């Protein structure tokens, strides 16, 4: 694995479904290039994709910041959007407010946030209704002792 910190930001545009998943797949490649083990890359990609899709579906715009060090990858996705009134309800498997046209694209099973939670080491959501949501997660890159 190569050392050195690596950080940056991707800008996400709400409702831009043709580029959907672009930020997550370039981050996935970054981790692969650093020689991160495949199972960790997979857990990371799932979390990043679900987070990115939520920003695209629900928000107007978002900023996905990442930092990768030797030990950890961390993502902070801050969006400008409607916010989440009840975070624990939103975290419930099967809870979704996705409208019909979003469901027709295959979203809206209410499994996105639970999938993130399952695949990361730490996850926090803060949200202000009418302003936006910030989702932060990290995953350890070195095998746990």
């Amino acid at each position, binding site marked *: 694995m190569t050392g050195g910190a690596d950080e940056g930001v991707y800008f996400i545009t709400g409702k831009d*479904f*043709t580029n*959907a*998943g672009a930020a*997550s*797949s370039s981050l*996935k490649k970054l981790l692969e290039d650093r020689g991160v083990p495949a199972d960790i890359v*997979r857990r990371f*990609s*799932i979390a990043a*994709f*679900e987070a990115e*899709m939520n920003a695209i579906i629900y928000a107007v715009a978002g900023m996905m910041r990442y930092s990768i060090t030797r030990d950890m990858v961390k993502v902070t996705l801050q969006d400008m959007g409607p916010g989440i009134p009840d975070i624990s309800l939103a975290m419930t498997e099967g809870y979704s407010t996705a409208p019909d046209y979003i469901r*027709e*694209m*295959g*979203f*809206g*099973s*209410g*499994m*996105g946030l*639970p*999938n993130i939670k*399952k695949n990361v080491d730490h996850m926090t959501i803060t949200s202000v209704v009418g302003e936006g949501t910030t989702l932060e997660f990290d995953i350890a890159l070195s095998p746990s002792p």
Partner: protein
Amino acid sequence: MKLKDIIDTLELQVMTPGLNLDTEVTGGYASDLLSDVIGHAKEGFVWITFQVHLNIIAVASLKGLAAIILVNSRALDEATLKRAIAEGIPIITSPLPAFEVVGRLYTLGLRCP
């Protein structure tokens, strides 16, 4: 079971030319909901779906699925097929409905372990 044997036996049509079909298939999952597939499908599975939106390629690629099997002769647009080829995800179609395709795969011995 190899992907190409499944394709031959079930007379499926491959929409993505040039991709390796020699992959070992480890199981199958049927769903039209992306996050459900992300949560439950496993590496090497075939994914049976009616869903044709571009996002299915990203999901299959991040889960390391063996192939996507589209039912009811669902057609993909050019952009989605290009993405599938670029990501190395074989897209296979069947004229049969999902129930029939899943039933046949099960008879061949595929499970959802």
